């Protein structure tokens, strides 16, 4: 029997110290695949609206993708809960080596409720789940905690999801981490763990992972490996990782600088990908990945002494470089290290600090609010200090630790205009107001401002119209500053990414996330190919067309979660600044651009129509029927496991 079809769900009550194990219903797999999809169903089904995300009533779901364990980049684990940052859906996934280990330990999904009486970690090995004391781990940073757990369980191959001091201190954007670098960063899942007194979830297993057609899975793995190596994308990612994107985006003028006041930073030589190479001591690979995009690096004499870490990614490059107007390799590497160890989402932390510096610069706050600190651009010391203050909620840090919505309430409505967020989650480190497809994707994302739900990076390449038409099934322009047809690009990518996330695959291994090069690899670029993969792994015949419907179902279910919490069309807009201020810098095609509200409204309408949602972004009754998401159907599905 393929392991993915006899997977187990553990319902873990931390308050009562009780565990109940059930088999994952076949219908769940057929309709929602795994990981992000199944997580959305559990959250929608189990959570009552208006629950305080930091209360014991919140539900934390750890769910691995359907294909976990194959010799391909298949190791994404999804962490879901109601987000303490936004009040909307919380959902974040990361790679590393946790997911296949959890499958070998006997579980595909963990549903964690209640609150432990004292600091606790879960030790899950070969079908057993044990509640263990974690007082000795409380206060340790994310890597120290993992090493201490390995020593304690006496097995250095055990894999853990952990929180750092930021999660313990309920920073609303604390992340969940595994390994030195992998972070389920967005939406504050670490704070939910912290609120439950849960320091870590540790897994270790010796069970076999079986497939319906093992020889076909192996063939696919070999073919993928061979094809991938022929692409330039592969070579670039192997050497530089995602940092390679920066030189292009900074040149074009699509990076955030000084919060959101400019869109290019010069000079930027010290934060370019090449600048990290002297510090690099090799690379690190997630489970089953032939790309291995992460640097391992050492900074020998930083103000924190010798530091060893992994990364940074494009996001951290922007947060700790261009966004703060700091052209320093060491600052970027040290900040990356700090947020990793403390367990903070790099993006939310960077964006909150950039906002603080701008409102200080504008005179909306002063030293009385900042504990005497003078906040200014280009100052590594300012940034280091604020990161630590946030993680430990010290002084001014306690305000920033609350995230955009609550911090704006505390510092006054005049500061709201400068806080770049959607649904209460910060905009990424990119400056997107010249690119309508990117803006739409970020604004309608089901977890607040976020690119990983849809980003059609392919839009930037100016590819031939015929090519794009073939890819998206309708005519659209090759001009990335145009609005024409972009609803289809975003919608198409949303469905595809929902499927990829739920299968547990890495976006870098699939499709056209970053580059059209990967399209020529002839692997995982169509629903048909993903359908074959699902068949080989599970034996389930889910056609390409049905997979696409799974994507629509997952996306709509996530939308329904947010609608129930009061998020509607009004929450699908970029910050006012995107409509008001033209970009001051960049290539001629970018310079002077700002968003056009009238065109954006039309784009939003067209986008809702593609999903089968009404003009308020509410799924129509016929859409719910088509997707099997009517109230009764969802109730019945969830009721199969949870009475």
């Amino acid at each position, binding site marked *: 029997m393929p392991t993915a079809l006899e997977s187990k769900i553990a319902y873990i009550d931390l308050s009562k110290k009780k565990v109940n194990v059930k088999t994952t219903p076949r219908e769940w797999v057929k309709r929602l695949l795994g990981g992000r999809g199944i997580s959305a169903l559990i959250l929608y089904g189990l959570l009552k609206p208006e629950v305080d995300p930091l209360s014991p009533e919140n539900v934390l779901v750890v769910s691995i993708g359907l294909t976990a364990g194959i010799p391909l980049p298949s190791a994404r684990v999804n962490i879901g809960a109601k987000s303490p940052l936004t009040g909307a859906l919380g959902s974040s996934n990361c790679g590393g080596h946790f997911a296949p280990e959890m499958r070998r330990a006997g579980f595909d999904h963990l549903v964690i409720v209640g609150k432990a009486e004292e600091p606790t970690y879960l030790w899950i090995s070969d079908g057993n789940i044990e509640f263990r004391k974690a007082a000795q781990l409380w206060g340790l940073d994310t890597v120290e905690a993992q090493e201490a757990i390995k020593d304690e369980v006496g097995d250095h191959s055990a894999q853990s999801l952990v929180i750092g001091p930021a999660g313990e201190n309920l920073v609303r954007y604390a992340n969940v981490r595994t390994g030195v670098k992998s972070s389920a960063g967005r939406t504050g899942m670490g704070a939910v763990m912290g609120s439950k007194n849960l320091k870590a979830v540790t897994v270790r297993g010796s069970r076999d992972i079986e497939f319906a057609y093992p020889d076909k899975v192996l063939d696919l793995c070999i073919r993928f*490996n061979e094809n991938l190596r022929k692409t330039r994308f592969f070579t670039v990612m192997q050497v530089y990782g995602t940092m390679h994107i920066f030189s292009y985006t900074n040149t074009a003028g699509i990076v955030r600088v000084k919060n959101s006041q400019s869109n290019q930073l010069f000079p930027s030589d010290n934060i370019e990908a090449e600048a990290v190479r002297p510090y690099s001591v090799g690379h690190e690979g997630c489970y089953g990945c032939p790309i291995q995009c992460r640097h391992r690096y050492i900074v020998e004499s930083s103000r924190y002494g010798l530091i060893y870490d992994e990364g940074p990614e494009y996001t951290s490059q922007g947060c700790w470089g261009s966004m703060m107007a700091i052209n320093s390799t060491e600052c970027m590497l040290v900040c990356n290290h700090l947020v990793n160890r403390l367990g903070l989402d790099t993006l939310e932390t960077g964006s909150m600090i950039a906002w603080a510096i701008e409102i200080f610069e504008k005179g909306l706050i002063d030293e009385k609010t900042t504990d005497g600190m003078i906040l200014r651009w280009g100052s590594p010391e300012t940034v280091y200090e604020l990161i630590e203050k946030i993680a430990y909620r010290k002084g001014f840090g306690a305000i920033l630790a609350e995230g955009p919505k609550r911090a704006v309430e505390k510092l006054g409505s005049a500061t709201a205009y400068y806080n770049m967020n959607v649904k209460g989650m910060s905009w990424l480190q990119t400056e997107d107001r010249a690119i309508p497809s990117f803006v739409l994707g970020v604004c309608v994302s089901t977890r607040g401002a976020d690119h990983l739900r849809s980003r059609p990076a392919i839009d930037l390449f100016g590819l031939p119209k015929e090519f794009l038409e073939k890819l998206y099934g309708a005519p659209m322009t090759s001009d990335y500053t145009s609005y024409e047809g972009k609803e289809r690009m975003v919608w198409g990518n949303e469905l595809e990414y929902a499927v990829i996330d739920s299968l547990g695959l890495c976006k870098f291994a699939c499709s056209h996330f970053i580059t059209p090069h990967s399209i020529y690899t002839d692997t995982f670029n169509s629903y048909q190919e993903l359908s074959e993969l699902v068949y080989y792994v599970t034996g389930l015949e889910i056609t390409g067309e049905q997979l696409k419907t799974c994507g629509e179902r997952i996306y709509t279910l996530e939308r329904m979660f947010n609608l129930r919490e009061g998020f509607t069309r009004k929450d699908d807009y970029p910050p006012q600044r995107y409509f008001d201020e033209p970009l001051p810098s960049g290539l001629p095609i970018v310079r002077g651009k700002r968003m056009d509200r009238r065109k954006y409204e039309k784009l939003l309408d067209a986008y809702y129509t593609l999903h089968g949602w009404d003009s308020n972004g509410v799924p129509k009754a016929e859409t719910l029927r088509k997707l099997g998401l009517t109230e009764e159907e969802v109730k019945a599905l969830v009721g199969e496991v949870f009475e």
Partner: protein
Amino acid sequence: MSEGESLGKMVVVDPSSCTGCQLCVAACSLKHEAQVNPLYSRIRAVRFEGKGAYIPVTCQQCKDAPCQSVCPVKAIERHEKTGALIVNQEKCIGCKACIIVCPFGAISWTADGKIVKCDLCDGDPLCVKLCTREALAYVPATTAHLKTQVKAAEKFSEILKKISGV
């Protein structure tokens, strides 16, 4: 590949290039045991992630092989084409003495009760084929030291540069 070419070749590991991705491990297990379980993989990439070290370990196909010497029923035989030490499953009595004496821990016991070890995939090792960092290479044993030698030379050249100021 001709017989002459494959004879005397070995899988040589380069820990400094390994990224710990487990691709070789998962694929090896899948190919030989039709399931993924690192316990059955003939190769292991041991991860010391907190220290940033990843060390591949596999059968060295020893010349005077302890596994072969210790086997009471002479079930471990030298493959005449590849030089790999192969377990003859018909002869093997499952005493597991080979597991105990192997200095590399390169021999293992599967849940369905069988001794398994690297067979060099009949001269085309899958692990080497899939490794994108060249942390594994399948080369004649007589040249196995060359990569390390060049790396050492590079280090010396850097030191020389510092001394001579060039």
